[in-house]
C-alpha cells in the first residue's frame, strides 16, 4: 500500500508539472504535438529511474559536500545514453526535440528527486518514486501536447502513422502551436489540475 502511494503521488497530488512546477522548460518547448510530449516524457522517465537507482545505491559513499556535483555527473551519464539511443533508434524524434535532450541534465525534476528522495530512501522505493514521477511528467506533457495540437492544428498524433487522428479540417488557432500558446495552455491546465486535486484529496 505504501509503495502504491509512492508510485501514484506523481500523477495528480505531486505532479511535477501541475503541482510542483518542476521541469517547465521542456514542458513548454517540446509540446507542439502529443507525440513529442510523450517522447520527451519517456526519455526523462528513463533518466529519472536510472539516476534514482544509482544515487540510492551510492548514497552512503558520497560526502555530503560534493553530493550535488556527483548527482549531476550520474544524471549527465544517463542523459548522454538517452541522446545516443534516440539518435540511433528514433531519429525523427531526436530531430524534433533537438537541444532539449541534452538539457534533460538540467531538468530540476531529475536533480530534485535525487536530492529530495533517492539520497534518503532505499533502492526499491527510489525506483518506484522515479517511475511514478517520470510517468506523471510524461502524462502532463502528453496532455499539454494534445491540447496544443488539437487547438492549433486540429489533429492528434500519439504515434505517427499508427495512432494519428484528424479531428477537424482547416486552420486551427495557430497561436497554440507557437510560443505564446504554450504559456497560456499551461496556465489553464494548472488551474484545472488544481481543481481536480481539491476534489480528490
Amino acid at each position, binding site marked *: 500500500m505504501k509503495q502504491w502511494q509512492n508510485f501514484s503521488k506523481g500523477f495528480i497530488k505531486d505532479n511535477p508539472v501541475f503541482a510542483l*512546477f518542476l521541469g517547465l522548460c521542456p514542458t513548454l518547448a517540446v509540446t507542439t504535438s502529443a507525440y513529442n510530449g510523450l517522447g520527451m516524457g519517456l526519455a526523462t522517465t528513463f533518466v529519472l529511474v536510472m539516476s534514482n537507482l544509482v544515487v540510492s545505491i551510492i548514497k552512503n559513499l558520497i560526502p555530503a559536500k560534493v553530493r550535488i556535483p556527483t548527482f549531476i*555527473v550520474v544524471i549527465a551519464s544517463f542523459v*548522454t545514453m538517452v541522446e545516443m539511443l534516440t539518435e540511433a533508434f528514433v531519429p525523427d524524434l531526436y530531430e524534433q526535440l533537438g537541444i532539449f535532450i541534452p538539457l534533460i541534465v538540467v531538468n530540476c525534476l531529475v536533480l530534485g528527486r535525487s536530492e529530495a528522495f533517492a539520497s534518503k530512501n532505499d533502492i526499491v522505493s527510489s525506483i518506484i518514486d522515479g517511475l511514478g514521477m517520470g510517468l506523471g511528467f510524461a502524462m502532463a506533457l502528453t496532455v499539454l501536447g494534445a491540447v496544443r495540437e488539437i487547438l492549433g492544428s486540429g489533429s492528434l498524433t500519439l504515434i505517427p502513422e499508427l495512432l494519428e487522428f484528424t479531428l477537424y479540417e482547416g486552420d486551427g488557432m495557430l497561436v497554440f502551436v507557437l510560443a*505564446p500558446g*504554450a504559456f497560456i495552455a499551461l496556465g*489553464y491546465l494548472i488551474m484545472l489540475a488544481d481543481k481536480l486535486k481539491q476534489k480528490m484529496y
Partner: protein
Amino acid sequence: MDYLIIVIGAVFVNNIVLNRFLGICPFIGVSSKVETAIGMTGAVAFVMTLATIITYLLQNYILIPFGITFMQTITFILIIASLVQLVEIILKKVSPPMYQALGIFLPLITTNCAILGVAILAVQNNYNLLESVVFGLANAIGFGLALIIFAGIREHLEFMNVPKAMKGVPIAFVVAGLLSLAFMGFSGIV
C-alpha cells in the same frame, strides 16, 4: 553588422525565455519583485558569458581534436557547476546583502537550462570566439529584459482582482503568454 544581428536576434526575435523556453524556472520563481529580478539577471549574465567562452574553448581545443564530442553534455555541465560555485564565493565576500536576497536561486543557476542551452546553441551555430561571447551576453540581456518586465507586471498583478482559481501561478503563465505574444511582433526583423 553580424554582431548586431546576433544581438537583436537573441534579445528580441528569439528571446531566450519567451521564444526558446530556456530558464523558465527562475523566470517564474524569482520574478515576484523587480529588485531580485535585477540581481538574478546580474548573476546569470556573469555566469552565462563566462560559460560560453570556456565551453567554446573546451569544445574546439579539447573535445573536437580528441574526437570525444559525445562527452559534451557532461563536461559542459561540470564547467557551469564550478563557475556557479565561483560566483557564489565571490558574491558572499563582495556583497552579502545581494547574497542574502538571491538565496536559494544562486545554486539553482547550475540547473538553469538557459546557461547550458546557450553554450550548446553557440556550438551548434558554429560561432567563433567573439561571436560566442556576444551571443552569450546578448542572451543574458534578453533573459534580463524578459525577467524584469515580467517582474514589473507581477508586482502590479498583486493588486488586481484575479479570479480565485487563477490566482498565483496560473495567471502568471497567462501573462507570460501575452508577453510572449508581444515579443512575437519582433519576428521577421532579422
